């Protein structure tokens, strides 16, 4: 089992990635990057990251979230975040990224927000 586990499922035309573990420098960040690149190659551009199981993220992981966001936007897609832990929400607040990302606490609400 790796540092970050990513389970992919489809909800209509939205791809949900249920993530658990750590998004940190090395394996965790690479796993996220690889997953996003693969989805974009498959033409899946509406992506919801369910971060409920992500216990830890460092500056490299935050950078990877930003990188994912810009890569998906560049392809005219949408990336949204679901179920942030309090610590991740705090990190996104102090880095002012909470204003950049579209963040949800309800999966139904998040899925409805994709247009």
């Amino acid at each position: 089992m790796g540092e970050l586990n990513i389970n992919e499922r489809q909800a209509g035309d939205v791809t949900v990635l249920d993530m658990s573990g750590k998004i940190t420098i090395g394996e965790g960040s690479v796993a996220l990057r690889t997953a996003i690149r693969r989805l974009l190659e498959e033409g899946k551009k509406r992506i919801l990251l369910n971060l409920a199981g992500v216990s830890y993220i460092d500056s490299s992981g935050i950078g990877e979230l930003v990188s994912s966001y810009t890569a998906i936007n560049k392809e005219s897609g949408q990336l949204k975040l679901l179920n942030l832990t309090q610590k991740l929400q705090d990190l996104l607040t102090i880095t002012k990224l909470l204003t950049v990302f579209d963040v949800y606490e309800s999966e139904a609400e998040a899925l409805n927000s994709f247009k």
Partner: protein
Amino acid sequence: MTVETTELSLPSRIDTVAAAAAAVAEFVGRSGIGDDAAFGIDMAVREAVTNAVLHGNRQDEDKTVEIILKSLPDAVEISVHDQGPGFHPEEVPDPTAPENILKTSGRGIFFMRSFMDEVDWSIRPGGGTTVRMLKRR
């Protein structure tokens, strides 16, 4: 009065970051630090060691990252030393400035300063940079 000191010497590899974090967590656990402070120390140590491995020693395995942990009566002090050319923290751009918010890197020092009570850098005689971080109890 120093209560306890631990010194580590680790190779300049990415997996050193997790190894250092684990060693520091164990030390912090013994030091009677609260959970919130321990989380902040963990974040700061990972960022400091990442910087030492990537930017200081540039993953040159002939160079080591040295970590000194001190449990003081009123604080925990952590020093991370690399063998790199040194750098000027004041030249690192503010990652929360509007033009930098969407940058994919450059938040490590910001996190270190956010989570620790004191952070300062010095160039050691003989070369290398030391970052010293203090978290009060």
